[in-house]
């Protein structure tokens, strides 16, 4: 087990290095730089040139790259040229929001997806099965943007049950008050995202539950007189959960990555919104740090999935 983890983690190093090179090249290929937006006769071009030079943007790309790598290895990601804060501070402010959103989305996702699949599999061919199949076909097929906007319009603006933007009410006081407000702000986006993303869990689990009904280990259990309830939950369900567990790492990554899109729509100030605005303002320090973060997260997600699978399925460890 530990060998496997070590192997996967070591494999991450060259992957990460290659990724950083690509990230840096892509960021530098974009026209303009963080000082382009300051362009104004109110400012002397020589002052902007001075600031550019001080920021090291006049150096050859490889010099900038190795400086960035060196700093990143020491945990220094520099300051945002535009938002005038250390990138780590900015990410800290936004990461908290994105984690809250992702956490609630993940919880709701499994809370919706698993019972849905169980109910469907237990009632194969019946109305309830057809209902959840249809529901997942619709949520999979309809563009998420349409649903997001509809939900915002209905529950946000018309019924005014939930806030439509931001991460916290500025008037919230005290630790509990602030956290309750934060949770209140993520309920609408997280429930919506979760409800629209169940198709993966639903399909894997439902198929697994139906397939495993006729597997040898289920028939053996049944032949031994094990009660049906126990067969379902202890044998069938647990085995059917393997692909779900394997997919857990990727699911987390998908939710984080999807935040770029979701936060934009719900105007939720997390990492996604920060990423979006840093690209439009050519805020290199933030762009590269966030791309590195998302890339790192993808690799961690893959490793996590492998580890979870190895943990729950001994056959993987042995092979």
């Amino acid at each position, binding site marked *: 087990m530990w060998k496997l983890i070590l192997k996967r983690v070591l494999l991450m190093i060259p992957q990460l290095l290659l990724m950083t090179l690509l990230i840096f090249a892509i960021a530098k290929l*974009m026209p303009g730089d963080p000082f382009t937006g300051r362009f*104004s006769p109110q400012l002397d071009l020589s002052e902007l040139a001075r600031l550019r030079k001080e920021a090291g943007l006049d150096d050859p790309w490889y010099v900038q790259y190795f400086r960035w790598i060196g700093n990143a290895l020491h945990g220094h990601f520099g300051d945002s040229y535009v938002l005038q804060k250390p990138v780590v501070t900015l990410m800290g402010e936004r990461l908290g929001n994105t984690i809250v959103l992702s956490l609630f989305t993940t919880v709701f996702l499994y809370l919706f997806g698993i019972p849905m699949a169980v109910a469907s599999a237990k009632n194969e061919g019946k109305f309830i099965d057809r209902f959840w199949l249809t529901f997942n076909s619709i949520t999979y097929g309809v563009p998420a943007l349409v649903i997001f906007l509809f939900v915002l319009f209905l529950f946000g603006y018309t019924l005014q049950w939930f806030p439509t933007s*931001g991460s916290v009410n500025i008037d919230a006081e005290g630790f509990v008050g602030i956290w309750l407000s934060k949770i209140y702000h993520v309920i609408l986006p997280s429930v919506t995202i979760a409800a629209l993303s169940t198709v993966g869990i639903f399909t894997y689990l439902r198929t697994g539950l139906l397939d495993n009904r006729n597997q040898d280990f289920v028939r053996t259990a049944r032949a031994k007189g094990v009660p049906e309830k126990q067969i379902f939950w202890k044998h069938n369900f647990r085995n059917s959960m393997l692909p779900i567990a394997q997919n857990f790492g990727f699911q987390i990554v998908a939710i984080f990555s999807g935040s770029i899109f979701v936060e934009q729509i719900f105007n939720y100030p997390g990492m996604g919104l920060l990423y979006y605005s840093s690209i439009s303002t050519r805020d290199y320090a933030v762009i590269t740090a966030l791309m590195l973060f998302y890339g790192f997260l993808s690799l961690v997600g893959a490793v996590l999935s492998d580890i979870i699978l190895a943990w729950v399925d001994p056959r993987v460890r042995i092979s």
Partner: protein
Amino acid sequence: MKKTTIKGAAGALAALSVAGLVLPVATSVTANAAAKVGGLDVAYNNPKKAIKNGTLKAAYISDTPFVGQWVQALSNDATSSSLEAPALGASIWTDKNFKFIKGGPVTLTVDDDAKTVTLDINKDYKWSDGSDVTAKDFEFEYELIANPAYGSDRYTDSLANIEGLEEYHEGKATSISGLEMPDGENGKKLVVHFKEMKPAMDTSGNGYFLETPEPYQYLKDVKPEDLAKDAKTTTKPLTLGPFKVKKIVAGESISYERNPYYFGKKANLKQVTYSIVAPSKAVASAKAKEYDFYNGASNDLYDKFKKVSGYKITGQQSLYFSAMYYNLGHYDTETSMNVTDRKTPLQNVKVRQALGYARNVAQVLKKYDNGLATLANTTIPPVFSAYANKSVKAYDYNEKKANKLLDEAGYKWHDSKKKDYRVDPETGKKLSLVYLARSGTAASQTTAQNYIQKWKAVGVKVTLYKNKMTDFNTWVSMMTDPTSDQNWDITDGAWSLSSDPSQQDLFSASAPYNFGHFTSEKLTTLLNNIDSDKAFSKSYRVKAFKAYQKYVHDSAFIIPTKFTIDYTPVNERVKNFSNAFGQHESWSKLAVTSKK
């Protein structure tokens, strides 16, 4: 170098003018209650009685978070400036023409003979923690700008007109010799000594000196390299306006409470919350009555806002113009001068004029700007009523005139019956030009293609640069880097002006922002006249401005395109809201007439 800002594709990219007048701010209703701009009321006159200790929720429409930098020397974010307005009171009050007046927290005296500007600080002028505003606080702002260690980008040639500031900026002096504090650092007087006096020094935002203080005692212990990110300048600032910061949610919103030490009238409102709202959500939030007014609204939202019940749309002329530029030369980096030497048919003034007359700008504005833009006749917006030359005619669509001018210029039709295209009389080649058109709004490409069709109709083949629209960042790189590809003939520029409209920065022979590189002795004379010693006489300056505008029109080195109106939807429960210029107790007077 001081006064104008480029209008980028993204509003958030634009920096502020020194006077902070780019965006409309709420002002008193009393002075301009009946005034209208483009059919919109400048103020909203709510007859209902205000409730006591109300709470107001304002929104700024933007798809990017605000920076939240409170030190003016380090701030270059238009969004922040708007959100910080409730706590940023003007130190020196101005009238509706942006001229300094007496009666405010600081009295300004210009002495042309002594070549000084003196700031006298009222003894009751205090920071939001109750400490006195001192001469050192005003002097400190100069240090922040001129000392490179602080990382400010605001140091300019105009400021170098202050004695000793250039030496301080270059590290040759440890203090600024031209800033005198006769009563000491804690005194209430600052005398600024200049090398030469300028006519615009009686106008706010002139760029020759600074108008805002920074709390020296509060900030003095922060290391220069840390100042921009320190809590004292980002989340816990000391301010001077009628409100002070209660709480900031980074990038999202600011909550304000009354500033008990405010110099002027005590605020009617007990609390103000100013938030960012995304453009895609602004109208929906207005329908839900989430905010009391919306700043930063773009023209494409205007029709939708107009239909929202419970809101009045108010407006004000922008200090803005846009224009079509012709590429007539290059910027010589060795001499720092523009040279009008490019070999192009555009060197012929009649060709330039013809291209101006061939554009149907008024029709385009009618279709895409919802009545919030008008055809510009000059580069001085009508808000500068004393200086704007109304007798200059705009280049309005006139295909016949365009054809006549091209004929006169010698560019005959290749086939006069088919009227296919015109031919260059010197080379015999097709008259063709390259249009560096900027992307940005939904209508950008349609508008560019429309002009290309109109130019084609008069026989000029115009193609887009690299056959596509150019993004803002690429465009800026091309405009500011003389070594970049300069193979374009036509482009568009737009500027937000400061409150003194002198345009040396934009069109002088040495201006790096003179994108078209047009220079002439006459233009230099006309521009210099505006800021000359004689221009201390107002009538002379008015004449100089008008002569300059006439020359811009006749020489057609640029073709003015449009002037715009900023609009602000205001909730009907708001009282005393106005966009009028020259109001100084605007946020104090704001009130609401109901709780929701």
